[in-house]
C-alpha cells in the first residue's frame, strides 16, 4: 500500500463509517491522482481500469456525438464517485469524464478491488452496499432528467 493511503481513504466521505479492515483493503488498491482543469479522467470506450473518488473539484460527465458539441448530462461534486462501469463486464467506460476544475481524487484500481470482492465476500458485500445506492440515486435522477419537465408540451 502507498504510504498514508489508508488515512486518505478513511477520511473520504464516501467511505465514512466503514470498519478499519475494510479501509485497509480498499487502501491497498488506492493511489492519489490529480487532473488539471479541462483534462479528461477517461474516455468513452476506454477500459474501466481505474475509478475515482473526488477529494477536491468537480467532474463533468459528457457524451459526444459527431457534428455536435459535447453535452454534459451530469456533474459530480466533491465527495462523489466518478465511474461505475467497472462494476459490470465488459468493464468499459460508457461516456467521457472531464475535470471542470483542478481535480484531486483517490484513484482505485478496479481489477484490484474486484479481485478482493471475489475472494472476500464480506468485503464484497460491504463494497456493493456502498455503490448500489449511488446507482439507484443516479438512475432516479436520470429518469427525472429524461422527462424534460421544464420543456413545454405543445
Amino acid at each position, binding site marked *: 500500500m502507498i504510504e498514508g493511503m489508508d488515512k486518505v481513504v478513511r477520511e473520504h466521505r464516501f467511505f465514512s463509517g466503514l470498519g478499519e479492515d475494510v479501509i485497509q483493503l480498499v487502501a491497498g488498491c488506492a493511489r492519489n491522482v490529480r487532473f488539471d482543469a479541462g483534462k479528461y479522467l477517461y474516455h468513452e470506450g476506454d477500459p474501466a481500469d481505474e475509478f475515482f473518488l473526488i477529494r477536491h473539484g468537480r467532474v463533468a*460527465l459528457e457524451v459526444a456525438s459527431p457534428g455536435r*458539441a459535447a*453535452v*454534459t448530462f451530469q456533474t459530480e461534486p466533491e465527495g462523489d464517485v466518478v465511474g461505475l462501469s467497472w462494476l459490470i463486464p465488459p468493464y468499459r467506460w460508457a461516456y467521457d469524464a472531464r475535470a471542470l476544475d483542478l481535480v484531486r481524487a483517490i484513484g482505485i484500481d478496479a481489477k484490484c478491488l474486484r479481485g478482493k470482492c471475489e475472494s472476500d465476500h464480506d468485503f464484497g458485500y460491504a463494497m456493493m452496499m456502498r455503490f448500489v445506492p449511488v446507482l439507484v440515486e443516479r438512475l432516479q435522477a436520470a429518469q*427525472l432528467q429524461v422527462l*424534460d419537465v421544464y420543456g413545454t408540451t405543445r
Partner: protein
Amino acid sequence: MSTAQRADVEVATPASNALAGSVADPMLPVITRVARVRREGADIWTLEIKPAAGFDFLPGQFNMLYALGVGEAAISISGDPAERGRLIHTIRAVGRVSEALTRLKPGDPIGVRGPYGRGWPLDKAAGADVVIIAGGLGLAPLRPAIYRFFAERPRIGRFVLLVGMRQPEEILFQQELERWRRRLDIDLQVTVDHAGGDWRGSVGVVTTLIPRAAFDPAHTIAFICGPEVMMRFSIAGLAALGVPASAMYVSMERNMKCAIGLCGHCQFGTTFICRDGPVFAYDQLRPIFSLREI
C-alpha cells in the same frame, strides 16, 4: 384588490361596478396600462403593468390578466412587493391568451383582476432555516418571497436557494441569480438538466442539490415551486432528510376561469386552488398529491 382609485392615476374604472342596490361584480376587470414588456427567454416574458393606486399583494399571489377580446390568464406576480409603483408578472407564452399578453406594447390597455390566492407563509420562517427550491418558471412566483427574505434577512436562519433549469441558455432571471450568488447571506446553487461545453456549473436535476445543501431539517421551512414532477421529487428529497410534511409548501396550478371560487375549474381534492391555494402546506395535500388525474 383595493377599489380606491385616485384621479392622478390613469386607470380606467368600470363605468358602474356597483349598480344601485347590488353588490360589486368581482368578474369586472380593472383596465390599466402596460408599462414594460421584456423577453426573458425563448417563450418567457416579463410584463410590467401600471398598478391601481393602493394595489398590494403577498408573495405567491396571482392576478388574472386580460388581453382585450382574447381572454384572461392566471399569471403569478413575480416582482418585489416593496416596489409599490411597479407590478411585474412573468408569463410563458403557451396558449392563445398568454401569447396575446406577451404581444402587448407599453401603453396598451390591459385588464387586471386580483390579487388572488394564499401566498407563501413568510411568517412561519421566523427563526428557521429557509430552503427554496425553484424549477424552471417556478422561480417566478417564488421571487417575491426571496425579495422579502433578503429585506428581512436577520429574521431567518440559513437561506438556501436551489434552482433547476433546463439548460444554461434558458436560465430565468440569470443576471439576478448571478448577483444573488455573489451575496454572502444566501447559499445559491443553480443546476441545469443538460449543458454544452461552455457551462461550468452543475449539471443534473435539482433534487441532486438537496443532500449537499446546509440546513437543519428539523428547523427548516421549505418553499417549492415548479413542474409537479419536480415538486414531488423535491419533497421526497427533503423528507428523506427529515423535513416534516407540515414544513414544506408548494404552489399548485390548475385550469382557472374565474379565480374567485365560483366556476369550479380549479378544484383540487377538497380545495379550490384560486381560493385555498395556490400555496399549500404539503401535509394538507399529501393524500391526493401523487394520485393520477385527481
